[in-house]
């Protein structure tokens, strides 16, 4: 049996083994996209390239057989650069959005399309979980948010954006009306305490997420009631105190402690707070003169923080919301709270403080002539709904109708796409290579499968699967070179090409090119339902 060395470690493998097999045996992870176990390597994506000592060029690990004494490097600069280049080249020719423009445009990056599909499917428990994953106060925001998401909604260019904000309000209102409104699962206590200064949207959001993460949060506020500007600046006809109170109550139910009528820097010193708590999050809203000094920060009209981590100059002290930025938007403050919570958790766990991981997002940009029609094909053609009673928000039927207007811009395989995953880990940029993008095309004739050629990386796995299953028509490469495309022979519809193995092709397809029509985010809708259960603290 040949012995080979990968990254300085020796391993003995079967004579027929590939470098990829050997690496696996050593526990070394080599990224692959076009390789499917049980099938001959197609060696097309070249993301698995490695360097073999003595070879002039890099070789794909998936298809290169081992030779006794072979010395392989799988993690040197040269290899990493080549893999990144392969990914960036694929991305330069990738037509599609990983997440919908709405979610990209939302400061809190809420998974709006998923929420909308859950509404459409009547999965209200799932919908509130989706919403609250990113937005701690959705019933509040459903009333006062300026909805930047709707500005960038693709449908806005056609006949009015999907009414995202009201849909979110609908989800949150319905939830609060249930006997046991949704409470996320909290991780076991970690025995570390966080002080949050300010019970406004940023502070409450931070407390909501930190408490879920197992940290004990105490929120300080000098007012009689929590809510900050939501309570004291927003007119009650816009945002009723009941809604605010109900949503804050859900946060408190997680175990968040409130210390009201307590002004840090006045009734209790910043030093004492920093002694008592392992970390501090400053979310006091717009600074008044003297506030900064009271909090032991450099005198200024706003708190200076690191843009990615929300860390101030003081160790363990973070800040967010209106205290750090001039542009005031509640949804931004809520997003700050959520993101700062991530940094604070990293800090408390002794990890490198980086803030929330920025998910890779492929973006196709503005639509070209004719592309809107492709998107409209699968959506309801009705006009944007307005609630019959604006004060009450959407009824169930209005919400459902509105939800069907969503164009489903996000990728059906956003969570499982290998291109996205590798792009993320290799820090690949889609705009690295300038290119004219191809038109967006979607083939929807198949009952279960959607094919988007613009996302295909031409690996041919589906062609192999169809051929081995003896599909009558199957799939084939058409054309050559840059223009090569996977298609059904004789331009027949996909439903004729994949009569037997549609499901298998979807599972094997490394990107969102072949996807289940009803996929949520790469998962089947049923699985998604189980994500959120009630309070199990």
């Amino acid at each position, binding site marked *: 049996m040949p012995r080979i060395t990968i990254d300085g470690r020796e391993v003995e493998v079967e004579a027929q083994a590939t470098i990829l097999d050997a690496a696996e045996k050593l526990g070394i992870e080599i990224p692959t996209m076009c390789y499917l176990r049980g099938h001959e*390597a*197609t*060696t*097309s*994506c*070249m*993301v698995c*390239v490695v360097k073999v000592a003595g070879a002039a*060029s*890099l*070789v*794909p690990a998936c*298809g*290169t*057989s081992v030779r006794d004494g072979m010395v392989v490097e799988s993690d040197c600069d*040269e290899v990493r*650069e*080549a893999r990144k*280049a*392969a990914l960036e*080249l*694929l991305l*330069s*020719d990738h037509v599609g959005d990983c997440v919908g423009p709405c979610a990209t445009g939302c400061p809190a990056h809420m998974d709006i399309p998923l929420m909308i599909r859950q509404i459409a499917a009547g999965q209200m428990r799932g919908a509130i979980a989706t919403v609250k994953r990113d937005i701690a106060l959705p019933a509040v925001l459903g009333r006062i948010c300026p909805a930047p998401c709707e500005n960038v909604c693709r449908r806005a260019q056609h006949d009015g954006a999907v009414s995202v904000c009201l849909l979110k309000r609908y989800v949150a209102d319905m939830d609060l009306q249930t006997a046991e409104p949704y409470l996320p699962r909290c991780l076991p206590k970690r025995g570390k305490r966080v002080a949050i200064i300010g019970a406004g949207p940023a502070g409450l959001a931070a407390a909501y997420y930190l408490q879920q993460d197992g940290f004990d949060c105490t929120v300080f506020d000098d007012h009689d009631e929590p809510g900050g500007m939501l309570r004291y600046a927003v007119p009650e006809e816009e945002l009723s105190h009941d809604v605010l109170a109900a949503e804050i109550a859900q946060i408190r139910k997680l175990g968040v402690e409130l210390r009201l009528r307590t002004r840090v820097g006045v009734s209790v010193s910043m030093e004492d707070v920093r002694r008592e708590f392992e970390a501090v999050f400053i979310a006091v809203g717009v600074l008044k003169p003297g506030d900064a000094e009271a909090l032991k920060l450099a005198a200024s009209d706003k708190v200076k923080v690191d843009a990615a981590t929300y860390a101030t100059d003081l160790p363990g002290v973070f800040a967010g919301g209106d205290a750090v930025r001039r542009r005031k938007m509640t949804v931004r403050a809520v997003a700050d709270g959520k993101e700062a919570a991530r940094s604070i958790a990293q800090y408390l766990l002794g990890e490198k403080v980086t803030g929330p991981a920025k998910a890779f997002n492929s973006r196709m940009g503005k639509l070209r002539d004719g592309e809107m029609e492709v998107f409209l094909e699968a959506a309801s053609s009705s006009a944007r709904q307005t609630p019959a009673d604006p004060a009450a928000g959407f009824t169930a039927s209005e919400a459902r109708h509105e939800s069907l207007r969503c164009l489903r811009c996000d990728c059906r395989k956003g969570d499982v796409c290998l291109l996205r995953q590798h792009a993320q880990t290799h820090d690949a940029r889609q705009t690295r*290579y*300038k*290119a*004219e993008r191809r038109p967006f095309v979607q083939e929807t004739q198949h009952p279960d499968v959607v094919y988007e050629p613009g996302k295909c*990386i*031409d690996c041919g796995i589906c*062609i192999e699967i*169809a*051929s081995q299953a003896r599909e*009558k*028509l*199957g*799939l*084939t*490469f*058409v*054309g*050559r*070179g*840059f*223009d*090569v495309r996977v*298609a059904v*022979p*004789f331009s027949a519809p996909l439903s004729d090409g994949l009569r037997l193995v549609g499901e298998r092709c979807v599972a094997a397809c490394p990107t969102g090119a072949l996807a289940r029509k009803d996929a949520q985010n790469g998962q089947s809708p049923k699985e998604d339902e189980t994500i959120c259960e009630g309070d199990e603290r």
Partner: protein
Amino acid sequence: MEELNLTFVDETVEKVGTGAEKVLEILQALQGHYGYLPQEALERVCELTEITPAAITGVSSFYDQFRHRPAGQHIIHVCVGTACHVKGAEQVYEAFRSYLDIPTDDDTDPQKVFTVERIACLGCCTLAPAVQIDGVTYGHLTRETVPKVLNDFLKQAGTAHRTRARRRKVRTGAGEIRVGLGSCCVARGSGRLHESLNKALVETGVRVPVKRVGCVGMCHQTPLLEIVTPSGESSLYARVEPEDAKPIVLRHFGARGPHRKITGAVSRTLDRLLTDESWGPVTRYSINVRDREVSDFLGRQIHVAIEHCGHIDPTDLDEYVRHDGFKALEKCLKELQDDEVIGQIEASGLRGRGGAGFPTHLKWSAVRASAGEKKYVVCNGDEGDPGAFMDRMLMESYPYRILEGMAIAARCVGASEGYLYIRAEYPLAVKRVTEAIEKATERGFLGDNILGTDFSLRLKIVAGAGAFVCGEETALMASIEGRRGMPKLRPPYPAHKGLWGRPTLINNVETYAAVSWIIRNGADAFAAIGTGQSKGTKVFALAGKIARGGLIEVPMGISIRQIIDEIGGGIADGRKFKAVQVGGPSGGCIPEGSDNLSVDYESLTAAGAMMGSGGLVVLDETDCMVDIARYFLQFTQNQSCGKCTFCRIGTRRMLDILDRLCAGEGKAADLDELQHLAEIIKKGSLCGLGKTAPNPVLSTLRYFRDEYEAHIDKSCPAGKCKALIKYTITDDCIGCTICAQHCPTDAIAMRPYEKHEIDLEKCVRCGTCKSVCPADAVRVE
């Protein structure tokens, strides 16, 4: 719509067979019959054969040869090979389209008479720019000659089949008349000359055999006619027109009957031509090996692969045998052991002539050592490099020599079956090799029990269908097996797992062509020619802006300068030499100044070029190096099989940048980006096509960086890139109106006796005005 008659499909399948590997042959037959590939016909093929719908769709869309929509009655293939490109092929293509009023979204004129298609390379580089209309090749086209060519074609199409060959009694020992009948020669009129010669002989009653001979290599002088008198004296006539046939016959062989009277007068006229020393392009005259130009052209050459060039009839087996043909095979079969033969090949230093230069004996030994009952030999005749036509000429002119080399190789490695994969663009090569296989089999040089021994070899021809990547050996095998020509990762090498998984020897045409010479003359004789690492000779196709283009065989180690100046007679039209492109899309440009470079594998690679299969396209001062780089990237990008990311998308991104540069939209960072992409594509691509595709860019960046930088500053020093130049008329204008008459877009108003002006909005930068102006009053800036 009219229902398609599918009986032809049934007949074809009946004739060709039903195996999955028959797909190319069936598609070629269907296309020949229907003019395109109707879907009903393809579906019928799938019903009748083992070919699946996926296979037939994949294959038919992979190769350039196949059309999926109806074509006109005649197809015009405009060659856009390298030599044609630098001589204005794009303008010729546009001229055909505009003359025929072809709508922008179509390739066929509204009356459905002519379809115009680009073709990668016709391999008639010395005729550049060339076009082929239904198999008839025309050379040296310009925008102006397009109507003439079409008229001529239509006229010929009406009369061609009326010409009859007439058998005549010939006297032996009466001397002979030799006419070069390679594709280039035919394109330049040697076919018509051949006819008129036969007619002249009938009319004059002269009985001399007329012999067709293969390519002489002097493509710049074709049609060539060589007269050998009974006394053995030889005269060579160049650029002979059909009407010259009779006077030449009369001059050398006298006439019987009434013609005798005029002989004297004719002879005097020809004498005047004979004494004409100039090589001007205007008229025909007799030349002689003693003439300086001819001796220069031939002097440096050593003929191994093209031995007996110009003397022997390509498919005359007797003549081949008289010239020691198949002696080497006999020696290998009856006197030498297989390992002795391989030892000879090793001692000769022969390396693969297809481009990479892999030692031939190593391949032979590897296949020989591979276990297996069944093995194959394959001849790679898929000469796809634009600007190369050596293999075409070898196959057209010396088919037996290639077959002999294959037979020797097959014997050594233990193969009993073989294939010759020949480009579809080379119909004459296919025809002659087919004929040669038949005749050689009939006489026992091929087939069962060759020369009475236990060695058998059956050879078949597979005609390619237009895909450059099929020159890559794994892609070529995929193509023979009836699949898309997609390369595979090596190892496994073909020597171990080749055609249908069996050990397979693949060598290039020219490699096989050298084998018999080595066996007959000894390895030492071959090794005595050339340099340390590169032994023997190499055949090159010399074309582009050279005075004497043609096909040459030179010793390895000759300098670029010797080839260009001594053999090629320097640059045409008195222009300045700028660079020579060596090795086509895998190669690079060697600039003026580096031209004392030795032509061998290692030196060329070190200089950023590559031997490639041996195309040499000479460039002059009017050629833009950025445009050349773009031309090649356009080619490789289009010819990439599309499998691996680096080649499929990477070459496209390089092309995007080059397009921007040529359009004047380049940025300073673009050059680093090109360099970066080039390096990553070289390093990461799966097969040779991708690994070498960046070479044309890297070599021009290395030697002509200033020209790239000029493009970023929005200027094209060579005046080639249309977006960066404009044409103006100077005060030298004499008001003759010729430019206005010729301008294809009416951008010049006709103003007799006044200075003309060009409307830059309408001007398409075709350069016609500049080429027709008698006063040299058109300036490019």
